[in-house]
């Protein structure tokens, strides 16, 4: 059974070893599902969030995985719209990663809200002025688009394509993939932006609030750019990691270099704009509310180093590294640069979520701290477990890397 599902010419580890690999991840998933059961059964008192720290680990992770999952839309955009055909080598994997990231984020969001059964209210009574409305609409729809992009991979499974009609549907869907890539790009553009807008519109929080361009705060545009910049880096990283874990060559080195180069350029543009935005914020936006920016960084350990790390160390430096041909020629350095680029965005999302909430607002408030409860951590680990499970299964039974077979034949 298992043998007949594995693509022709692909070497996969024996089934028992594969199941052994899955076991710990399944365990993690089960443990996390137990934690989410506790949250559903007893309420969000199972978390360490409170009335002051109303967003926590979960929202931070939602923002992070959605930024990293941007590789799906951006690779699709480059391949189907800008016709960068060399990216065919990673598009399938990018779609699976995107699907995992988005479905994981939506799953966690459903635990995070107090009344998940009322989620449809947003569609029924939408407040179109809320960034969260835009996020909800776009993410829901985009998850559907990702599912549509995922479906052809499943239909092309060696066994499933023997089912009459299934491959025909795949063929027709594939022909129309440019539509889904376009829609995916549009939707991603808006929800990545709106996730940034979530904080940029907070008029009551001078740390998060930013100047507006038309109806959008600058964080709207910065989030789009940063997500597009690290999306390819994350695809590079996951592809490299899967290659290491499975001990296989999955794509040719040129694909890595292309991804790195695209990431580098976008990251450079992002860092420049982020720099300009920070200067405007430091010199105009924040002082207008009577707050000097330095006071945001007067609460150790959240010193100015964090801004430096975000913009220079994990922004400018990886951008320069990724743009260097010599760095790209060495896989080790390229991967390191990609890790740094991703870390920069992970840090940015952390700062936007956690520092925003931790800073005091009322005159007699103090800097707050919060550490997630085991239930929150476990629910997050469940997403990790789910992701590894779904990816491993996809990698075993679907043909995620079209170049793998030929690279394996070359030896």
């Amino acid at each position, binding site marked *: 059974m298992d043998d007949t599902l594995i693509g022709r010419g692909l070497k996969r580890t024996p089934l028992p070893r594969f199941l052994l690999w899955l076991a710990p991840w399944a365990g993690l998933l089960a443990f996390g599902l137990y934690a989410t059961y506790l949250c559903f059964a007893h309420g969000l008192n199972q978390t360490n969030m409170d009335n002051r720290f109303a967003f926590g680990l979960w929202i931070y992770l939602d923002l992070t995985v959605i930024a990293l999952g941007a590789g799906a839309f951006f690779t699709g955009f480059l391949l189907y719209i800008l016709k960068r055909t060399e990216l065919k080598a990673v598009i399938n994997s990018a779609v699976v990663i995107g699907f995992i990231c988005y479905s994981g984020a939506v799953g966690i969001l459903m635990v995070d809200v107090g009344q998940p059964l009322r989620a449809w209210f947003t569609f029924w009574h939408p407040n*179109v002025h809320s960034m969260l409305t835009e996020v909800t609409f776009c993410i829901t*729809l985009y998850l559907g688009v990702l599912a549509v992009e995922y479906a052809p991979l499943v239909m092309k499974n060696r066994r499933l*394509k023997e089912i009459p009609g299934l491959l*025909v549907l795949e*063929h027709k869907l594939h022909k129309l993939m440019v539509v889904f890539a376009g829609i995916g790009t549009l939707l991603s553009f808006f929800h990545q932006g709106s996730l940034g807008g979530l904080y940029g519109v907070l008029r009551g929080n001078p740390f998060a609030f930013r100047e507006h361009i038309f109806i959008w705060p600058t964080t709207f545009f910065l989030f789009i750019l940063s997500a597009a910049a690290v999306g390819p880096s994350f695809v590079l990283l996951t592809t490299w990691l899967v290659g290491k874990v499975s001990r296989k060559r999955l794509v040719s080195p040129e694909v890595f270099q292309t991804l790195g180069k695209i990431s580098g350029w976008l990251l450079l543009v992002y860092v420049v704009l982020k720099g300009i935005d920070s200067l405007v914020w430091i010199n105009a936006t924040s002082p207008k509310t009577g707050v000097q920016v330095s006071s945001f960084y007067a609460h150790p350990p959240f010193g100015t180093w964090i801004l430096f790390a975000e913009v220079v160390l994990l922004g400018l430096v990886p951008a320069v590294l990724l743009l260097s041909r010599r760095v790209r020629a060495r896989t080790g350095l390229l991967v390191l640069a990609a890790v740094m680029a991703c870390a920069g965005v992970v840090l940015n999302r952390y700062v936007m979520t956690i520092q925003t909430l931790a800073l005091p607002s009322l005159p007699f408030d103090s800097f707050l701290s919060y550490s997630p409860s085991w239930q929150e951590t476990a629910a997050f680990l469940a997403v990790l477990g789910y992701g590894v499970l779904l990816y491993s299964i996809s990698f075993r039974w679907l043909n995620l890397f*079209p170049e793998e*077979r030929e690279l394996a*034949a070359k030896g």
Partner: protein
Amino acid sequence: MLPGNTDFIADPFNLVFLGVFAAVLATVVGTLVVAAVSARRAVTRGKAASILWQHEFEELPSSAKECRHALTGELPGRHCDRAFECKGCETHAKLVADAKALPFLDTGGFDVPADRYYHRGHAWLKPEEDGTVTLGLDDLATRLVGKPSTLDLPPVGERLAENGPAFRLSAGKARVRIASPVTGEVVETGSLAKGFLLRVKPDGPLDTRALLSGGEAAAFFTREMDRLQLAISGARGVPALADGGLPVGDLSKAIPEEDRDRVLGEMLLEA
């Protein structure tokens, strides 16, 4: 959300936002419907086999896609981009028009009877006197497969499409389908012992334009031996060309079990 909702506000923000959302949703759903409808139409019009074949062909390594006129040396290094459907091929039409009969030279040690037509996927087709055709595995495929562990022939009455699946077989860990050289209806199932596997009544007059015969078939078999060598060059314990190449007599034993599925797929043109 719907304008009928009691608290719907018809201000520009709402109208633009919900309008865009509705348009995107309609595009997604509409595209899915278009895909589903055209897939259904393709299936009912019997195009499923051809689409499957196109898909297989696309996924094959480029070494498997050499043009038939490259096999014979008429057009060196040319690869086919129309899934071996020579009927509409201009290059083919031109070359056939001024083709001299190729000399029937070396067949690479394979038995290539001259009364048959050969499909690039290694099925042969033999026109019978009663207007039907018989199908079977050619000598290379027979030696490559060895003794099949299963052989799934379609029942009498089943429709076959050119390049679509004719029958399936397995050998060891390998499972592979054999592409049909003809469109028609199965009228009799044979067996390895009977010397043919299927008897088919073709739709309309027999069309053999995409099939190889005579000297072209001989050249094909010689070149297929090279391709086989290439396909298993990565496998361990296989005699290399320098050792005098593969023994034609016992091809199936020359392929390591773990590579059998891949090699069979590559040679029998199933991705």
